[in-house]
């Protein structure tokens, strides 16, 4: 991870292979941020159930999605009041609700449907738990996840770790094949 104080971007990454669709992340976010949902559910993090068929076999996968904190955030560009900014310490895309006029330009601009609107009509969304991150804590969703499907960190570092896991799986598979007498390479 980069040092606090430099312009680092952190991300919350979701591994759909490990996700069991338990919704703990959704609720932990609501608990951390006191998300109100009485009138119109404005869940900051959402878990989508995706069902597909591979030949005769059905497959169900879950995707947990909140804000992606884009490096070049369309919502930030679309906002007419400058209410949306990128944190210099964490790279989090954060909205200051006191500057928001509720015009919903950000909602139209965001390709992922992230912006949410509560009772006041101003925009609210995942802020990467950036104050927690600055205090050395993990985002609430990452912390709660029972299977570690949500991970937090520098995207290059996370990518490296994913590669490492896959590399070790590939090599193990090749080792078993070779032990069984196959001459197949990786």
């Amino acid at each position: 991870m980069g040092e606090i104080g430099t312009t680092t971007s952190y991300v919350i990454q979701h591994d759909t292979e490990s996700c069991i669709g338990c919704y703990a992340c959704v609720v932990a976010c609501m608990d951390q941020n006191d998300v109100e949902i009485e009138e119109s559910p404005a869940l900051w993090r959402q878990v989508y159930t995706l069902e597909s068929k591979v030949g005769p076999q059905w497959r169900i996968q879950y995707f947990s999605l909140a804000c992606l904190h884009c490096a070049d955030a369309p919502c930030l560009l679309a906002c007419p009041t400058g209410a949306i900014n990128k944190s210099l310490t964490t790279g989090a895309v954060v909205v200051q609700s006191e500057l928001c006029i509720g015009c919903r330009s950000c909602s139209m601009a965001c390709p992922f449907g992230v912006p949410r609107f509560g009772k006041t009509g101003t925009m609210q969304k995942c802020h990467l738990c950036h104050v927690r991150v600055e205090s050395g804590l993990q985002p609430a969703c990452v912390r709660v996840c029972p299977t570690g499907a949500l991970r937090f960190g520098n995207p290059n570092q996370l990518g490296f770790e994913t590669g490492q896991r896959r590399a070790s799986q590939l090599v193990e598979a090749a080792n078993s094949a070779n032990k069984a007498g196959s001459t197949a390479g990786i």
Partner: protein
Amino acid sequence: MADLESLIAAKIPGPRTGIEIRKSICTICDPTTQCGLDCYVKDGRIIKVEGSLEHPQNRGTLCAKGAAQRQWVYHKDRLLHPAKRVGPRGSGQMVPISWEEALSTIANNLVRLRDSYGPESIVFYCGYPKHPRPFLKRLAHQFGSPNFCTESSTCFTAMAMAWQLAFGDMAGPDLPRTKCLMIWTGNPAHARPLAARGIKEARDKGVILIVVDPRLSPTAALADLHLKLRPGTDGALALAMAHVIIEEGLYDLEFVARWTRGFEEFRAYAAQFSPPTAEGITGVPASLIAEAARLYATTKPAALMTSAAPVVQNTNGLQNQRAAVCLVALTGNFDVPGGNVVAPSAWLEVSGAGFITREHEFAQSRPWSDMAPRIGAERFPVWTELFDQAQSMALTRQLETDSPYPLRGLVAFGMNHRMWPEPSRLLRAMEKLEFIVDVDLFATDTSRYADIVLPASSSVERSELRAYPQKYVVFTQPAIPPLGDSRPDIDIIFSLAAQLGLDDPLLNPSESPYRSAVDSSCTETRPDGAPDCISAYEAALDWILAPSGLTIDELKKHPGGMFVPNPLPVEFRKYEKQGFGTPSGKAEFVSSVLEKYADRPGHDPLPVYREPALSPVSAPEEAARYPFILGTGTRLPMFIHSRTFRLSWTRCLRPAPAADLHPDDAARLGIASGDLIEISTSLGAIQVKANITSMACPGVVHMFHDYPEADVNSLISADYLDPVSGFPGYKALLCQVRKVSQA
């Protein structure tokens, strides 16, 4: 660095913000979970929760329900004062009263009923959570009533029964050491997410995973082999697997010859269940049945993971579960590393925690022979013989008939009448009860029928003792004081014991001739003036803990819990020294206990397969009108029975009562997700939304239970019970589905 306002808004703990982390546990669900909870407390209020990192059970994680703890604790429907009924039963018209008036009214009525009808006329019931159970059971028996019962009348015990009939003991899967795990049946991904990681890790290590489940659950999706069977046909599948293992000589010859009873009869019976025959019954392809059988039998060691509900909540559930556990005997995987291991029970149904207690002696404070026969003793003698409770599924009929004796009082902790099939029939029968007390956190449909309602405190407002299979133990401290006038369930039990003047040194220390040694009482008071029974509770726990070497004083130094010092060593193959805890001393394919009752329907000494009482095969005329299989009660990750319906954070994840239907069935019936559908049986109908998902089993409607506005248990007969265990056949009966209107 952020300013103080931002730090407080982000709930950063520490001296600067005044946010303190206090340790507790979550008891929203209560089958062996009780995740460690970090409560972020500011100005006496919990503002956030997190899983405790150091707690080996959940290792810093939580599920959707635990994460919604604050909505649970601070809900506007929390009962805050004792109340008495002023309107008709069911009206919910109550007025607040003092604890003094409540306790004396209860005691006077219980004594009056005891004098008129005998102490057995009072039923003592405990739902969730489970920690009051040993105390309520002791209270019941000290009062003279044998009738202590719990939701275990419908969950867990029948599974334990299958193990006990076969081996004399339950034996859990040794997951860290196994090479092949057969889950029959369970979905930890949604029922115990903290366990899902362990299964994934095992899978990643190369452990073979076989899952038997009608549904394509996230757990089944991980499996190497998924045996997707018609609900309620587990027995046929197990016998077919036994057939393959025996025919192909894959069974443990030595273990079977030396340590089992009835193998020849079992072999002859299993011969009737070839894989093609079983395919015809279960729908699982014959080749898959054979492959699973071979894998389980030849991978050494292999472990079977059974669970509390899916298999045994069928009208032939007990025998089906027995057939499955027989595979453990057949393959010699009993009490071996990596197989199914017997561990001594520690506390509250947790075994393998590394210590033992006097829980049983504490709770069973009077021998059964001293008291009248329990509810259900005549109808369910085997369940009664094996378990130290009354079978509450017999409650409805005993209330209706007054046979073998009348029941006239009910003291209930967390009772939900919708747990019983045909709930309205139970409510009508309960009109015979002259006095009903209900203790709960919230006003419920059931508490509307009580004469006195008492407010209970949640887990974060009380102290309790819990043990964990990771050899961990905790005696929690309250993170916040009890809300309003609510009290811990244990306090209520101790107060009742004192009010009743029970001559019991452990529940009513003021009466104790050993008082000077015990030095505890309920005469201390809390800051709000209410009596505080904590020292009596702690003294009782110390009595219970005596064989363990643990003390409450030591545990209080570790409010987040501690590892058990010097845990009891795990021994394997204990049967070689002491035999099996069955009448024959051997693992039994033919059950000695069931032989005693063999003339009763369903009590076959062999694990005989029978169709569910209402199935397309057993009831073809019914199936012509009701062609779908109705399965109820399958777990959803954000709900546990009715407990979290009222929390908006969990309710919003599935707002309307909805039934899962497979896409193939939906397409045939022209039903889309969100459409209103009607599910009907011969007993009635409910209307719910359709949720189309390939997780459902084709031909099956999966409906979650306990919705007051769409109570699926109202569609099940009160007598739709397994004849041996008394468990309702929640998981397989017949229904019809029709579309009512578009979404």
